[in-house]
């Protein structure tokens, strides 16, 4: 799944550093792991933040381990199973970290209609943030909306265009309070995205606001 050269829109440094520090809500961890599976630029950035972690742990204050710690660890080693060497790598449209949550590739997604052909599937993550897959028919629009918190959208199939730019497979758009946008799917192909939010979206029309209550958008 090497498409590094085609990806234009990347993760932000702070989200990569927070992932490296193990400090992200699960839903944001999912979008980072999925994008990094598709993007070697961000994988290298992430691993350089891991290198900072390596410097921190090497310089950190030590804590004395118990006197039998080495023997206890050798016991763990002889009791444990070998780590399997077969790599975890996807051959489908969805990268492996996402397939782990969906339970398969595109055909396994449990879509719920949102109207106008738009569909969503909420993925099971911890409550601190929400991850959902969005299905936007070719040429259709997601209702005009703003954001209370941070919304990150990663394109998995097709492409969408909004007031900012065009986003194709592997591209990620990071939206915050300042951005109000109406994403429209490219006419060529239905668009499938992973969208992650840490606060509800603000829709600007009355009907979507009603729907918001029922559909947990």
């Amino acid at each position: 799944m090497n498409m590094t050269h085609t990806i234009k829109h990347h993760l932000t440094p702070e989200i990569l550093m927070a992932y490296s520090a193990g400090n992200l809500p699960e839903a944001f961890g999912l979008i980072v792991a999925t994008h990094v599976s598709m993007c070697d630029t961000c994988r290298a950035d992430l691993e350089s933040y891991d290198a900072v972690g390596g410097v921190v742990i090497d310089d950190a204050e030590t804590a004395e381990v118990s006197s039998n710690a080495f023997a206890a660890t050798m016991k763990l080693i002889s009791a444990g199973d070998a780590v399997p060497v077969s790599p975890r790598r996807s051959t489908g449209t969805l990268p492996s970290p996402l397939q782990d949550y969906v339970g398969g590739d595109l055909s396994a997604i449990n879509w719920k209609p949102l109207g106008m052909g738009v569909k969503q599937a909420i993925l099971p993550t911890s409550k601190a943030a929400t991850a959902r897959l969005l299905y936007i028919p070719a040429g259709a629009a997601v209702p005009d909306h703003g954001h209370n918190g941070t919304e990150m959208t990663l394109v998995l199939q097709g492409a969408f265009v909004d007031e900012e730019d065009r986003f194709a497979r592997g591209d990620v758009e990071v939206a915050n309070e300042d951005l109000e946008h109406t994403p429209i799917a490219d006419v060529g192909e239905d668009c499938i995205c992973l969208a992650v939010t840490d606060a509800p979206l603000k829709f600007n029309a009355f009907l979507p606001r009603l729907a918001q209550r029922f559909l947990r958008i």
Partner: protein
Amino acid sequence: MSNTTKDWTAQIYAIRDKQDQAAFAELFAHFAPRVKGFLMKSGADASLAEECTQEVMATLWRKAHMFDPARASAATWIYTIARNRKIDALRKQRRPEPEDLPWGPEAEPEQADAIGLKQETEQLAVAIKELPEKQRSLIEQAYFGDLSHSEIAEITGLPLGTIKSRIRLALERLRHAMK
């Protein structure tokens, strides 16, 4: 040679190739107290930190065949194992991980790449040591899990350009081996 710049590749290869307990003992003496200190700073009590440290060190042994010195120093690699254990033990949520890149003999790193990565890691350690005390302590806090995202945004401007390009080269080599 200071601890930070010590190269542990030979010890990890000795574990991988010969299940060498003496080499493992050397790694253990250096890293186990650091892993335990890191876990306690991250909020684990002493007994949980002790238990997790032994598991982290056991994982190091079992995954020795996956260590790639052209892509990460031993300290970096052990940090990621400890970080993962920390999330599992303290945060109790699932931990999505990126897809694997290939490992193993077909992608055995060139010595020159490993040396290059080692030099970049040393320079990074020096650069971090030379930062003003306040900024250095913020970086530590970020990795111990005490900073919000907006606070992290203020310290991401680290001198990472050269180590990034070095890691990118290692990734290209792995991608090439996949074809």
